[in-house]
């Protein structure tokens, strides 16, 4: 029995040179490829989910309670910083304006009283105390008026009795929370605006080691490249997918990445130069990785070491540049050797 095995092994060892004519090789679909050192992106593909960066979101409030009179933007519309988004009728504003008008009259009145009292005082018709009292009264009226004006101004731009509500920043109206006539106040925002110039992309890798020490990477989505930064690695495993969860902070330069977008994200972790061969060029015979080297009248078995892989390509060692190896149809060569 042992003898038998030895004979078998010996015959396998001898059969490492395979004669194949070029026509046969072509007919069987055995193509060859030159071994060259090339650069390949060491890239990984993950399912990914785009989420808004909450730090770039804000809500638009009415500074005081009121009632929505006019809405100037709709949900989903893009707004610029300072753009008016709504008019809110506020009784407080109306009240303020009335008070201001009264205060104005009061100031005018006090001014006139003061002028008269001053003249009378100068003509020494009245005592100083009266003049002083008028002066105090005027200043009081004035400061009252000013205070009221300031209060009104603090509510922002006002058009008649309405407050003009403006967006504080640029962004997209992601949620409109009110309709015409809605009562609003500090408790109830008018709308939510989100800035998408930077987004979060969650990816779900099976292996975290690739992210070790990596800070900046590139995210490829349909040939668009986005600079990204590993923002956070979840301490928990995602319950739904059973995978790790990693958050990337991605510069959404062209606004293509949309919130809740589900995509296959291709992460480039850098480029590696070496002898990259297509996966089907490398076969396994008796537990050893081999390639079939082209020689003048056929192919020659050559052991190789596989040191890396990426996207259907294997990084191998043990070959020289310029050699030609069989790709495709290698199963015929393999079974010839195994025979």
């Amino acid at each position, binding site marked *: 029995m042992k003898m038998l095995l030895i004979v078998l092994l010996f*015959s396998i060892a001898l059969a490492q040179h395979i004669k194949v004519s070029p026509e046969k090789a072509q007919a069987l679909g055995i193509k060859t490829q030159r071994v060259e050192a090339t650069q390949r992106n060491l890239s990984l593909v993950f399912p990914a989910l785009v989420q808004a960066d909450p730090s770039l979101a804000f809500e638009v409030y009415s500074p005081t309670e009121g009632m929505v009179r006019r809405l100037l933007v709709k949900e989903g519309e893009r707004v610029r910083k300072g753009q008016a988004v709504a008019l809110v009728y506020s009784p407080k504003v109306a009240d303020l304006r009335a008070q201001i008008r009264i205060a104005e009259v009061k100031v005018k009145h006090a001014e006139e009283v003061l002028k008269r009292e001053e003249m009378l005082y100068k003509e020494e018709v009245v005592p100083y105390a009266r003049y002083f009292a008028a002066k105090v009264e005027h200043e009081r009226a004035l400061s009252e008026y000013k205070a009221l004006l300031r209060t009104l101004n603090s509510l922002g731009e006002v058009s008649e009795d309405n407050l003009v509500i403006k967006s504080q920043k640029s962004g997209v109206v992601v949620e409109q929370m009110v309709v015409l006539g809605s009562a609003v106040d500090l408790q109830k925002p008018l709308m939510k605006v989100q800035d998408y110039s930077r987004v979060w992309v969650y990816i779900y890798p099976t292996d975290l080691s690739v992210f070790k020490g990596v800070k900046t990477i590139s995210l490829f989505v349909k040939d668009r490249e986005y600079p990204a930064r590993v923002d956070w690695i979840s301490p928990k495993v995602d319950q739904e997918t059973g995978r790790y969860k990693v958050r990337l902070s991605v510069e959404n330069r062209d606004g293509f990445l949309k919130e809740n977008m589900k995509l296959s994200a291709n992460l480039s972790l850098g480029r590696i130069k070496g002898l990259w061969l297509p996966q089907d060029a490398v076969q396994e015979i008796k537990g050893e990785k081999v390639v079939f080297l082209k020689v003048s009248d056929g192919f020659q078995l050559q052991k190789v070491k596989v040191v890396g892989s990426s996207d259907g390509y294997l990084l191998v060692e043990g070959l020289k540049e310029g050699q030609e190896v069989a790709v495709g149809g290698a199963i015929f060569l393999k079974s010839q050797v195994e025979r």
Partner: protein
Amino acid sequence: MIRWVLNLRLLVLLVLLFSILYGFYSFLKLPIDTFPDPTPAQVVIYTETPGLSAEETELLVSKPIEAVMSGLKGAQLVRSISLPGLSYVSVFFAEGTDLYFARNLVAQKLLEVQGFLPQGLVPRMGPNTSGLGNVMFYALVDTGGKYSLEDLKAFQEWRVKPILKSVDGVEEISQWGPSKAYLVMVETSKMQQHGVGMLDIIRAVEDYSRSAGGGFLQSTEGDLVVRGVGRFQNPEDIKAVPIKKTPQGYILLGDVANVVEGEMFNRRGAFTLGGEEVQGNIILKRVGVNTMELVKNLKEAIRKAQDMLPEGVRIEILYDQAYLTEKAVRTIQKALLEGIMLVSLGITLYLWNPRVALLVSLSIPATLLITFILLNALGLSGNLMTLGGLAIGIGLFADATVVVVENIYRHLSEKRYANKLSLVIQSTSEVAKPVFFAISIIAVVFLPIFTFESVEGKYYKPLALTIILALLASLFVAFFYMPVLSLWFLKEGKEETRFFTIIKERYLKLLSVAFKIRPVLLGFAFLMFFMSLIMMARVGKEFAPQLEEGALLVKSFLSPNVSLEEAKRVAKLVENTALKYPEVIRTFSNIGRAEVGEPEDVSYIETFIILKPQAEWKSFKSRQEFEEKLRGSLEDTPGVEFSFTQPIQMRIDELLSGVKSTLAIKVFGEDLDTINQIAHSIEEIVSSTKGAVDVETEAQSGKLQLRIIPDREKLQLYSVSTQSIMGVLEYYFGGKEAGQLQRDTMLFPVVVSLAEKSPEVVRDIPLYNSEGAVIKLSDVAKVEMSEGYGKIRREDGMRYALVQSNLSGRDLGSFVEEVRRRINEEIKLPPGYSISFGGQFENQERAMKKLSVAVPTAILLIFLLLYLNYRSVRDSLMVILNVPFATVGGAFSLYLLGYNLSVPSAVGFIAVFGIATLNGVVLVSYIRNLMEEGVEKREAIMQACSRRLRPILITATATSLGLLPMLLTTDIGSEVQKPLASVVIGGIFTSTLLTLIILPLVYDAINRK
């Protein structure tokens, strides 16, 4: 008796007329076939075992089925092949078992078997067809380039098949090519994003494709049939199937999958024509149906089916078995016709009287016509063997008539009787006894052939039967028609031709010289016999010569792990190599299996190469040479083993031993690895033996598997059931139908699949557990690649590995002898392991064993008859001397013409023993008669020799000439009869010579009176 016949001569004439007409009618009605079908009564049971490996299939399915089936009444042998996904058990019944009875038995037991099998596995009986069942190959070809292979397959399935299947005698049509299906190509990444599970999709498709009948409903409009029509009509319907409701709305199937019209996956076969894939089909005939008729009907049905096809689609017939039958039968018919002419001519040389010659010549067709009536009545078909029997015996059939007519003629010429009627009666009765005796000797020697079994029985029993029937018919002709015809037709004339007179004078001179140098001649005769024995030992042995089919079959064996695409490339390579030769009409291949139920995989290809008639061959002279050329140019194809044979031959080989080659060495044992190792070392021995070609050990191991083994603990942890894993595999990878899509009147399956399939994708298959969380397959199961067994063969409950080999330029007998010797010397079998030789060789061994009984029995029968006739052991022994005399010629001609000792040549020996003995009988009887009349011994011998020279020569000449056309032709079908013809001609030549010269010497020496 004779008087009675002659008195009713008008009636006899009417009978003659009737027999001629009815004979012609019978001849035209005679069902024509190539061979008697050698298929034993055999029933195939196949069971699909999706997902089971070969080992599991063997253990769970093949073994229980074997156990039950081997207990059936009449079941002699049970073989099984277990493949991943298929169990194939064949049960062979005792010869003579009615096939329908056998099928019934199996059908009853199948129910019982069902109980032993794992749930969901259903054993089925294979089609009731035989090894010669592949009667016709045809392909649907689209000349307009409008239709895809899937479309063509749909046309075949829905339009052509129903028409052809309705032709009586068609058991099944195996159809190749991709089946059209609507594929739901699911993208797993999208599924994960939408939170959709694999089973959700299946459920959705199943739920939304249901149709149901709702019975009837009365309405004011009338009675309504209520129908729920939920079947999909187009791919858009499928895309619109909602899978799951979410707060955002429904997730539709189209969101996570693309629906395309494409080919059903997991196809394990293809059919190529001239190197390109086509939609090919093979029509399997029911056992016992006449091929010629079936093919004729099929061709008509194909014309009808052609009209049902759209413009541009043509049905192309690639191969039918009828052509071979036609050719073979035409060869035999030609040989028959030429034989009749030659025999008539030969007889005329001796009996130079046109009237005698005419009567004798007439006797042959008359005999044949009566034989046809008998054949028809017995339900035998006209085939290579029955018609061949007639062609072989053509000279014999004239014998009785020759003797009768010649005697009448002689008496007429001698003018001894005044009354012609009484003369005829007298001269006929005179020869009646010897003629009956002589013919019965020939008939009797064929009797041992009826002990033949299996193929040789199926082939040669009809042959023997036909010859015996024809001999009886010839007696009928000689004693019923001939006296009447002679009475009217014969006139007196010269007794001898000049030609014969010269021969006779020379012979008598020679004989007197022979008496003087008796010891030398006797010694010479002995020496010749001795030499012939040496030659016999040196002549090769084989079962039967190969019938030239005018077509070649190349089998390609590939690695078990090749894909269909790669296999197609090999088929193309083989076909293109063959097509380089202008002698090749067309080539086509079938790769793997058509549909379920055949134990082949894509690693096996059969390529048919159809050749022009042999007369047009230029690049090569013989099939062997062509084979050599092809073998040479294919030799360096890496990873592929080729084997060459012929289409029908291969089927017969396969049928008889379960393998498709000439020699099969089976290594029996329990451990698969061990038997494979032994098989490999045997392969080396065989391939290093001279004459071995196409040596191949079937790759049993090395089939890569992707095993998905659920981890029970993890299953519990995630509360996922094995059921849901297996459900996913069953649908997404096994191709289980999830729904149906209707197009016009055709239904197509809707199957779910993954947009991208790779081991990595399998690992990432998302599963839903009962709590709604998504888990990957690799979380709960081990997904690993491993090597398993591709094919496990068993016979009579034992596993075996198979080494196959064909032969070139050497006879099977000596080859096997050498291989056997070397295996015995070089291989030590562990206990519990054994080796057996099978294939054609098995037949040869069995046949030779039978023959070693049959031939002595024939000789013994002859001796018994002789003894009954002579009541003298000495005389009987003397006549039996003709057996060695005939052996000399038979052996010499076999040796010199390069034929092997085979069943037909052995049958030839049996025949020639009978015929040769006849010569001796004629001579010895006459000498005895003369001596009883008181003639002195030497004088009696000389007189007898002189008188009996003519009948002996006539018989010998007629028999030899009758066989000559068969020996000389090279047409298809003659190969099988040639060794027989050569033995008979050679044997007759020497036995005649020796009878005429040595026998008188021996008689003289032994009888001291």
